[in-house]
C-alpha cells in the first residue's frame, strides 16, 4: 500500500474506514509521527456568508460539524454593504447560506428573486408587538434579535448621585454632563437603529428632543465613533447607548463593583432581527437546508445565550425556559420596531443628527450649562425654562416633513461598487442642509438671548 512517496495512500472512500499508518507505539519513546493519506469522495460542504463575529460563528460552525460528521462549514465574511455588492456580482452562485444582521439585504435579495423558499417554521415566524421578525412569505427567517438599551457603570452612576437609569430620558439628567456616550449614525454601524429605537419608541419630535437633551451630556469623542464599551467599563463614562451583546452577561447582572457593567432595556426599545436565508443558486442546497434547520432549532437557539455568543433567541419557548433573562422582546407593550422605516429614512436621520446635534455641539452644551446655572440660581420661571429647552431640543425637520419621500430620497445612502468613491452630495442636498444649519443657529441664538435676559 505504500506509494513511492513513502506515505500510506489508503484510497478509502469512507472516513470511518480509515486506517492509519502503523508504527507509532505508545509510551514516552514513540518514534516520530507517521502519515496517512486518505482520498475521499468530495466531502459535504456548506458555504456561508456572514458578518457575525468569529466567536459566534465558531460556536455554531463547530456544533453543526459535530452533529453532521464529515460536513464542513466554510465561512465567507463581509459587512452588509460589501456583501450586497458581492452577492449582486455573482456571489449568489458561490454561497449556500446568507446569515447576518442586515435586514435590508434580505429584503432586496428576496425582491430580486435570489432567495430560495424555506420550509415554513411557525415558531421562527413569531412577531414582536404584531410586527413579524421573519419574512411572512418564508424567504428568510429570523435567527436572533439585537436589543438596544443603556450600558452603564453602576459605581459611576452612584457617584453621580443618581439611581440606575431605566429609560432614555434618564440619561438627560444634567449630572451626566460629559459622562454619556451616544453612537453617531454614519460612524458606528448600529447607531442608526439605536437612534430609531428612540425615534420610534418616543415618536419623532419627542424622540429628537430626548436625543438632543442626552447629546448635551455627550462629548462626541472617539468613544461615540466606535462600538466599544471600554470607557464605561473603566468608569470614565457613566453610561452609553448600546446594543446588549456588547456587554457580557457575566457582567450584565454583576454586583456593582467598579469596572463592572450593567445593561438595561428601556420599556419601549428596538429588538432588531438578524436573518438567515438560502441562495436560490446554492451549490449545496441540501447541506444549506440542514444548516438553516439547525440554526433555527431549539438547541441552537439555546446556544445563543452562551457567554461567548450572548444574543437573544427568536424562539419564544427559550424565554419561557429562561425567566432570568432581563430581555423580554415578546412581552406585550413592546415597541413594534420597524426596520424598513429605519432604512427608508436613515440617511435623513444621520444628516439631521450631524447638523442638529454634532456640529453645534460645543455651543449647545454651553447653553445647557447656562440653563442649569439659571435654574440653580432660581432665575426665570418654569415657562421660560421650558421655552429655552424647547429651542435647544427642536430639530429642523418636523414629523410631517420627515414623511416626505423626496426628502428621504435626497439623503439615501447609495450602494457602491468596490473602489467607487462616495458620491459628492447634490446641490439640492447641500441647500437643505444649509437651511437646517441656519435654522439651528437661529434657535440657539434665540435661546442665548432669552438666557441673557433672565
Amino acid at each position: 500500500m505504500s506509494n513511492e512517496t513513502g506515505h500510506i495512500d489508503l484510497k478509502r472512500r469512507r472516513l470511518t474506514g480509515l486506517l492509519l499508518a502503523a508504527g507509532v507505539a505508545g509510551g514516552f519513546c514513540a518514534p516520530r509521527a507517521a502519515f496517512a493519506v486518505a482520498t475521499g469522495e468530495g466531502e459535504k460542504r456548506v458555504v456561508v456568508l456572514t458578518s457575525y463575529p468569529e466567536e459566534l460563528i465558531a460556536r455554531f460552525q463547530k456544533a453543526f460539524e459535530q452533529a453532521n460528521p464529515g460536513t464542513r462549514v466554510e465561512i465567507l465574511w463581509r459587512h452588509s454593504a460589501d456583501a450586497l455588492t458581492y452577492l449582486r456580482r455573482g456571489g449568489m452562485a458561490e454561497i449556500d447560506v446568507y446569515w447576518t444582521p442586515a435586514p435590508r439585504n434580505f429584503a432586496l435579495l428576496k425582491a430580486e428573486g435570489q432567495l430560495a423558499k424555506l420550509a415554513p417554521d411557525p415558531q421562527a415566524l413569531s412577531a414582536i408587538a404584531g410586527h413579524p421578525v421573519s419574512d411572512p412569505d418564508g424567504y428568510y427567517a429570523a435567527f436572533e434579535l439585537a436589543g438596544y438599551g443603556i450600558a452603564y457603570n453602576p459605581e459611576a452612576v452612584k457617584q453621580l448621585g443618581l439611581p440606575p437609569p431605566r429609560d432614555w430620558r434618564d440619561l438627560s439628567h444634567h449630572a451626566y454632563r460629559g459622562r454619556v456616550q451616544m453612537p453617531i449614525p454614519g460612524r458606528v454601524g448600529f447607531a442608526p437603529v439605536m437612534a430609531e429605537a428612540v425615534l420610534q419608541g418616543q415618536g419623532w419630535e419627542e424622540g429628537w428632543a430626548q436625543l438632543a437633551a442626552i447629546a448635551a451630556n455627550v462629548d462626541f469623542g472617539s468613544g461615540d465613533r466606535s462600538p466599544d464599551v471600554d470607557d464605561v467599563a473603566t468608569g470614565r463614562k457613566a453610561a452609553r447607548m448600546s446594543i446588549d451583546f456588547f456587554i457580557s452577561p457575566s457582567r450584565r447582572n454583576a454586583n456593582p463593583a467598579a469596572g463592572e457593567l450593567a445593561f438595561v432595556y428601556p420599556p419601549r426599545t428596538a429588538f432588531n432581527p438578524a436573518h438567515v436565508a438560502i441562495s436560490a443558486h446554492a451549490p449545496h442546497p441540501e447541506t444549506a437546508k440542514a444548516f438553516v434547520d439547525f440554526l433555527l432549532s431549539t438547541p441552537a437557539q439555546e446556544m445563543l445565550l452562551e457567554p461567548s455568543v450572548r444574543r437573544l433567541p427568536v424562539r419564544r419557548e427559550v424565554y419561557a425556559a429562561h425567566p432570568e433573562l432581563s430581555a423580554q422582546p415578546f412581552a406585550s407593550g413592546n415597541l413594534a420596531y420597524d426596520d424598513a422605516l429605519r432604512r427608508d429614512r436613515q440617511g435623513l436621520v444621520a444628516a439631521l443628527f450631524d447638523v442638529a446635534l454634532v456640529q453645534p455641539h460645543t455651543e449647545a452644551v454651553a447653553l445647557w450649562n447656562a440653563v442649569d446655572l439659571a435654574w440653580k440660581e432660581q432665575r426665570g420661571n418654569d415657562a421660560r425654562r421650558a421655552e429655552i429647552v424647547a429651542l435647544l431640543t427642536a430639530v429642523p425637520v418636523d414629523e410631517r416633513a420627515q414623511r416626505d419621500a423626496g426628502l428621504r430620497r435626497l439623503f439615501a445612502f447609495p450602494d457602491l461598487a468596490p473602489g467607487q468613491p462616495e458620491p459628492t452630495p447634490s446641490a439640492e442636498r447641500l441647500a437643505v442642509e444649509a437651511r437646517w444649519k441656519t435654522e439651528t443657529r437661529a434657535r440657539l441664538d434665540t435661546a442665548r438671548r432669552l438666557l441673557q435676559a433672565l
Partner: protein
Amino acid sequence: MRTAAFVLSLVLVPPLALAQEPAGGDFSVLPVPGAEREAFQRILWEKIPNPLWDKVRSGRSLTRQTWVISPSLEPRIAGLGPTYNRPSCLSCHPGNGRGEAPASPADPMRGMLVRLSVPGQDGHGGPKPEPHYGDQLNEFGIPGVPGEGEAFLEWATHTERLADGQEIELRQPKIGFRHLAHGPLHAGLMTSVRIAPPIYGLGLLEAVPEADILALAKAQKAASAGVAGQPNRVWDAARRREALGRFGWKANQPTTRQQIAGALAGDMGITSDISPEPNCPSVQSACAAIKAKANERHPEISTADLDDMTLYHFALAVPDARRQNDPQVLTGKALFHTAGCAVCHQPTLKTGAFPTLSALAGQTIHPYTDLLLHDMGPGLADGRPDYRANGQQWRTPPLWGIGLAEAVNPHTGLLHDGRARNLLEAILWHGGEGEQAREAVRRMSAGERDALLAFLKAL
C-alpha cells in the same frame, strides 16, 4: 543526579512567606470574578499613554476582525487568501486564548495548523518549504482556488502508572491528510502540528534583554544538572539580521510584530511589509493566477495597521496569580521548585528598555519561562527542525495565566499539539531534559500532586 537537582532547587526555592508580586509587574490585572473568560483580553488603559488609545482600539478591532476576500468595499480588511486556514486571528486564538486539537479524525482542525517542510534550509536558515504545498497546509481557498487539503489527527492512547498506583491515560496524535489538491506530499516530508497558544504578555517577553536569556542558558549549562536550554537564532526580517527567537512553540519568531505578520501571511494569506508576497507555490496555478492579477494590492495590510495590531498585543495585561496565600498553593509552589520545574519555567525575569510602550520597561515579571529550547524527548518530538531548534526541542512555554485557560476556552488542551487534556497529562509528557522533573512528579504522593496542580491553577 538527584543530588544535583536538589542543590539546584535549593538555590531556586523562594522564601515561602514572601508575598508574590504581580505576574506581569505593573502590567498585571486580577480577573473580574464571574468574567474570567475575558481574562486574556484585559487592557490596562491607565498604563497606556492617551495618544495611543485609538491605535490600541484599532489593533484590537483588526485582531478580532474576520478578513474579507478582495475585491471589497472595505479594502482595509480585505485580502484573505488565495489560500488560508482560518479567516480571523480569533478563530484559532478564541478569547486571546488557545486553540483546540480535534477530538476525532472526522473533525477538522479549527484552532491549529500543520507546518510542512522537507530536508534542507531556506535562505535564512529556516525550514525549507514543501515544494507543492509550501510551509503550511492551507485548508481553504477563496472561490476559484482549491484548498490545499485537510489534515486530521488520529489518537493513540496508552496508560501511565504513577508511583502511588494512580493510572493516567495519555493520548498521542498521528497526522493524516485527505483531499490533497496538488498531488502527493514530498517523500521527505516533515510535519509539525501546533495549536495556537495564548497571546497576552508578549510585549513583556519581548522586552526581556537578549543577554539575560543567554545568561540563563549559560547558567543551566554550568549547573550540568541535565537541563541545558539553547537559544533559537532566527531571521529578523525587519532588522535584516539574526536574532534570538522568542515566540512560537519552537521560538521561531523574534518579535511580536513578525509573529503577527507570519500569522497574517501563513494562516490567512494576508501580505504585509514583512511578508509582501502571496504564498502560492508554483504548481498551484489558480492561486498563482490570482497573485498575477493586476488589481491585487500588496501589501494587503498597511504598515500602520500591522503596528496597531502589535501595539494591541503589547497592551494586553497579564492575568495576575490568585490564591497566593492558600497553604496548598504554597506547598505546590515549593514542590514546583523542588521538582525542578522552575529551572526551565523560570519564575522571574526582568524587562529592559521598551521604547514602543515604555510602561513595559523595567518590570519584574513572573512568566515561568526561560524562552529557551529544551530537548523534551522522543515522545513530544515532531522531528522537524525549525532554525536552530531540532526535532526534539521545544521552547518552554510561559505558565502565567495557565490556571485560567479553562475559563477562557472551553477545553484544557495543552502542549504544542494540544494532546494533553489537563495539567497532569502535560507534565507526564515531559521527557528528555524534563524527565527528572516528570519522575519527581510521578513519585509524589497524591496530596503533593494535588498541591502542585493547585499552584499551577492559581497562576
